[in-house]
């Protein structure tokens, strides 16, 4: 093989700018989607453990439907199928403000929310029932018990699986390139298209992803150590897919 490497394509022309912009978009879409996923996951995960059956069923439907369908299908669904159904002014606003970014963010957040939900549920269920009863007997209402006792403990218990899943979210944000979100993988391909330098462009993208994942994993380990509850490690069964 006589392939002449030319790494300068990564910083000549617009490549550097594209890569930087790709990193920022990847981090931006992942952060917003993470916040949405954390909110949806916490609420639906908590609802799956409440005594009131209709709420439990609603949360179960959300989780089982969204996490069992490929993310790519959700990207297409939220980008191509949903906007035409929205009221006119909202549609206009969306198409003037990067509809693909919001659709991608929404798809990513709703999909991972369902996956977070499973982890939060197993976190809550790993808390001894007596904690719940003790909290109720001090006069707290069910909602207060969740808000002040159960959720804070559960969140600390599930930091390791959530950390892992957050990295999956970051990696899955690459699927948004299918709806033309200009994230890191998209920009990598753009450099490849403009320079015909597949090897260099893909190497740059891969190294950046590895660095991001490694950086976040290190940060998460620190957080994990800071918040670990002594004697409660390993109580949460690892969540399934």
């Amino acid at each position, binding site marked *: *093989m006589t*392939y002449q490497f030319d790494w300068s394509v990564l910083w000549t022309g617009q490549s550097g700018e594209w890569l930087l912009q790709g990193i920022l978009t990847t981090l931006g879409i992942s952060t917003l989607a993470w916040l949405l996923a954390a909110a949806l996951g916490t609420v639906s995960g908590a609802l799956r453990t409440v005594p009131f059956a209709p709420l439990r069923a609603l949360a179960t439907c959300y989780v*089982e*439907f969204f996490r*069992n*369908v*490929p*993310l*790519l*299908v*959700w990207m*297409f*669904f939220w980008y*191509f*199928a*949903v906007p*035409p*159904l929205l009221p006119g002014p909202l549609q206009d606003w969306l198409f003037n403000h990067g509809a693909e970014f919001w659709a991608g963010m929404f798809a990513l957040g709703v999909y991972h929310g369902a996956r977070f939900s499973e982890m939060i549920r197993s976190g809550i269920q790993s808390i001894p029932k007596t904690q719940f009863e003790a909290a109720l007997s001090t006069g707290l209402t069910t909602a207060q018990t969740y808000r002040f006792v159960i959720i804070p403990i559960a969140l600390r218990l599930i930091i390791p699986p959530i950390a892992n899943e957050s*990295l999956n979210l970051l*990696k*899955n*944000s*690459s*699927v948004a*390139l*299918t709806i033309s979100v200009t994230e890191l*993988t998209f920009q*990598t*391909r753009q450099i*490849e298209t403009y320079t015909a330098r*597949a*090897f260099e462009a*893909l190497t740059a*993208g*891969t190294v950046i*992803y*590895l660095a991001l*994942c*490694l950086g976040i994993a290190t940060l998460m380990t620190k957080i994990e150590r800071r918040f670990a509850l002594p004697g409660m490690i390993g109580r949460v069964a690892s969540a*399934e*897919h």
Partner: protein
Amino acid sequence: MDFTVVAKNIDFLILQGLLGFGNFVGGTFRLAIPAIVLGFILGIFIGLARLARTPWIRIPAMVYVEFFRGVPLVMVIFWFWFIIPLLLRVPLPEYGVALTAFVVFEAAYLGEIVRAGIQSVARGQAEAAMSTGLTPAQTMGYVILPQALRNMIPALVTQFIVLFKDTSLASIIGYVDLTKAAEIVNNREIRPFELYLFIAVVYWLCTYSMSRYARYLERRLTPG
């Protein structure tokens, strides 16, 4: 809402897209099943290598696993899409590229399942087998692996569900799976809501039934 578009194209969507019978080399199952089988075979080697005592076997296997778990699957698919023609000097069909990418990528995850499965077999088993005079290779082949495989089954079914969903990403390089089939029909009919909702339901039916089965297996195979 006009779901007749689904009825009109059901043959193409299900036969071609999901199962792979038709004019295109395609199909979600036709990619997912060989990918899990081949990925598992490669995964056994990687899982065993990760448990090896020799560092130059153990460390490359560890790097392999950590590398592929730190990179998005989309990126891996593009690597194979661009690099295989460069190395082989011949263009490979989408099916070959997608299958190679999935086998290599999934092997990293399956290797971890294999490793966990082997580690779940009690240590005394290996010692007992060795003390009856079996060689280390025989101990692995006749005593440890059969028990480890049984312990792995629920995790393998779960991984197959993940892989099954991930095969939708092969549509990015033009492989005609269920997602691509819906895209093709949508380009002609412009009915995104009906079509994407329909394939979401098809995917859901497949994965949900598999995940129920995984849960059933887990209950049945858990000792005690």
